[in-house]
């Protein structure tokens, strides 16, 4: 596989959320607003890339019998680091993300990439693979956050779009369903539908 493909494929044909259907839990939970979605996307990307590099560097020294434990130690160390940094520099966002920062540890994308890719690849391709998958995850999260905040709360990044446009005066109302997690699932379903209709080769026979 060419290096460029490592970044490009997770965006479309091998998207972690749309095709591998990994990391859906956090994708439903933190996308009610744009800001936490972006922070979560960045955090996961950072963790996947760093974990991929570290595990890839260690790959020849890791005894196969304890490899999952070693991966877990690496991932959880990184996640605690991210959590501490968020608490120190973006306290409000870290409160909103609450338990989901800790849950990056169990985000299947991270462990999935470590086990499937970084354990058997050199560091540089691992960086690209982590970056590709992290960004592929980010694209979906940010798209969902955008749609859900805009239609659910009438704001974008906290800016009251609907109010400024004067939509409320002509009878517009926010869609309360948008801010509930089930709506995120429906939106992801719609995106997957659209995505499959564009990539016919992904459809199972």
């Amino acid at each position, binding site marked *: 596989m060419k290096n460029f493909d490592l970044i490009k494929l997770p965006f479309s044909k091998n998207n972690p959320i749309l095709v591998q259907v990994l990391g859906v839990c956090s994708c439903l939970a933190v996308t009610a607003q744009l800001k936490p979605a972006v922070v979560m996307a960045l955090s996961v990307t950072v963790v996947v890339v760093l974990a991929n590099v570290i595990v890839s560097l260690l790959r*020849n020294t890791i*005894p196969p019998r304890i490899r999952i434990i070693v991966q877990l130690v690496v991932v959880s160390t990184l996640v605690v680091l991210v959590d501490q*940094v968020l608490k*120190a520099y973006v*306290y409000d966002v870290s409160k909103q993300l609450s*338990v989901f920062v800790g849950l990056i540890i169990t985000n299947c994308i991270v462990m999935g990439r470590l086990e499937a890719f970084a354990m058997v690849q050199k560091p540089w391709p691992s960086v690209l693979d982590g970056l590709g998958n992290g960004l592929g995850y980010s694209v979906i999260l940010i798209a969902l956050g955008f749609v859900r905040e805009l239609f659910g709360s009438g704001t974008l990044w906290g800016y009251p779009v609907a109010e400024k446009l004067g939509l409320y005066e002509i009878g517009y109302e926010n869609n309360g369903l948008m801010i509930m997690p089930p709506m995120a699932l429906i939106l992801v379903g719609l995106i997957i539908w659209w995505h499959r209709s564009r990539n016919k080769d992904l459809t199972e026979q």
Partner: protein
Amino acid sequence: MKKTFSNTYIFIYSAVLVVVAALILTVVSVSLKPLQTKNQQAETKQMILKTIGVEATRDNAAELYAKHITEDDGYYRFDGGIVLPLKGTGLWGPIWGYLALDSTSTVVGAVFDHKGETPGLGGEIATDKFAQRFIGKKMDSQAIHLAKNADHSNPYEVDAISGGTMTSNGVTAMLAKAYDDYSNLRKEATE
């Protein structure tokens, strides 16, 4: 991976890995602690100000707090009343809050927060919607408690959170404790 590893290697490897991880985490945790503490203190001040109807941002919280609140032996006095601190346990961890009472022990403002209650269930106690249910309730002759299908005309009863029974019980328990402390305080004041 055809390479085999001896048990000794595996033991040493895991020991070294864990020690390195622990070292890194300790260094980071210690170095970021001051910033985090500062955020938490500002947040506490924001919460207390909110119960008396003053909206503060993280930056001006300390200034407004100094202006409106005087601390008094674990309580917070403001012009016209007192703010009771609440501390208790929810389902997964600590929950806390502040309850502002006027001179007739009627609630004028409340705010709750939690460490790790389930978002959307027990975590709802941190919302304004939940806190507003307390306004107008009384802490004079008995404590406020949470109940399913609460009677809204009863000044000691507030609607509990559906799906958050354990957290609601925790809120009731910490209100009861705060009431005991508060009635002791009032007794002392009249003696």
